């Protein structure tokens, strides 16, 4: 599996590092992109970089819940102080790139990163749903 360092991703996407200058040696092996948090919750996992256009506090919480390695905001979106504070608190690297979502993903794919389709961690309910008839 290809692994790419955050410092390489920063250069590849002309990104600025908003949080996590000390973590640019971290390697990621997959990418998950989207603006819908429940889609991210389904796919992303440890060692994944999250590319998103959503610039609010729920992005940080979603990223921490699934344990992604870094978050990249597209279209030159800059995080506000609250977002930066939360990312720092959780030790989550946060980058901002001028690329669009499509271009950012394209460059990362070209670099060898792949999606999270194969990382489905578990399948289905063992006992079914009970409750209301």
């Amino acid at each position, binding site marked *: 599996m290809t692994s790419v360092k955050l410092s390489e991703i920063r250069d590849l996407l002309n990104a600025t590092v908003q949080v996590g200058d000390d973590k640019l040696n971290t390697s990621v092996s997959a990418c998950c992109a989207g*603006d*819908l*948090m*429940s*889609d991210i*919750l*389904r796919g992303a*996992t*440890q060692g994944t970089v999250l590319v998103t256009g*959503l610039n*609010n*506090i*729920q*992005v940080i*919480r*979603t990223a*921490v*819940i*699934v*344990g992604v390695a870094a978050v990249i905001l597209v279209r030159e979106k800059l995080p506000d102080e609250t977002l930066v504070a939360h990312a720092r608190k959780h030790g989550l690297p946060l980058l901002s790139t001028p690329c669009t979502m499509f271009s950012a993903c394209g460059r990362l794919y070209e670099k060898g990163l792949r999606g999270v389709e194969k990382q489905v*961690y*578990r*399948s*289905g*309910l*063992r*006992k*079914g*749903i*009970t*409750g*209301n008839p």
Partner: protein
Amino acid sequence: MPDLERRFTIRANDFVNAGEVSLEIQSILKHIGFNPALIRRISVCAYESEMNVVMHGGDGEALLKVSPNSVTLVFTDQGKGIKDIELAFKPGYSTANLKHREMGFGAGMGLPNIKESADSIEIHSEEGHGTTLNIGFELEGDFG
């Protein structure tokens, strides 16, 4: 491992803090020492459920129970209830409003994601009288 029981309050439409209860639950599970895959499953269920309470449930609470053989999450709210439970579990079905969507929610994947991650789900809901969602996880050597 000692039994553990913790209760958390969740406030309706409190988007400033929405998700913090789940992060605290995740932190407790990490402290206990469960493996990352199990922690991920439980955390995703907690977060989706917490967001459901914040967005649709009115005020409510979360209960985390850890026993030697299982972990249980119970979310109880006094909100508007679910009209059609089967429909609510259908991927893509959503009743989220514009505000929820601006926050990145409303994909219609909340309950489907919970279904995907849980070992058991018990749901009781009545229109106008709130919802109780009980999510179970079995422990089978899930430490380390």
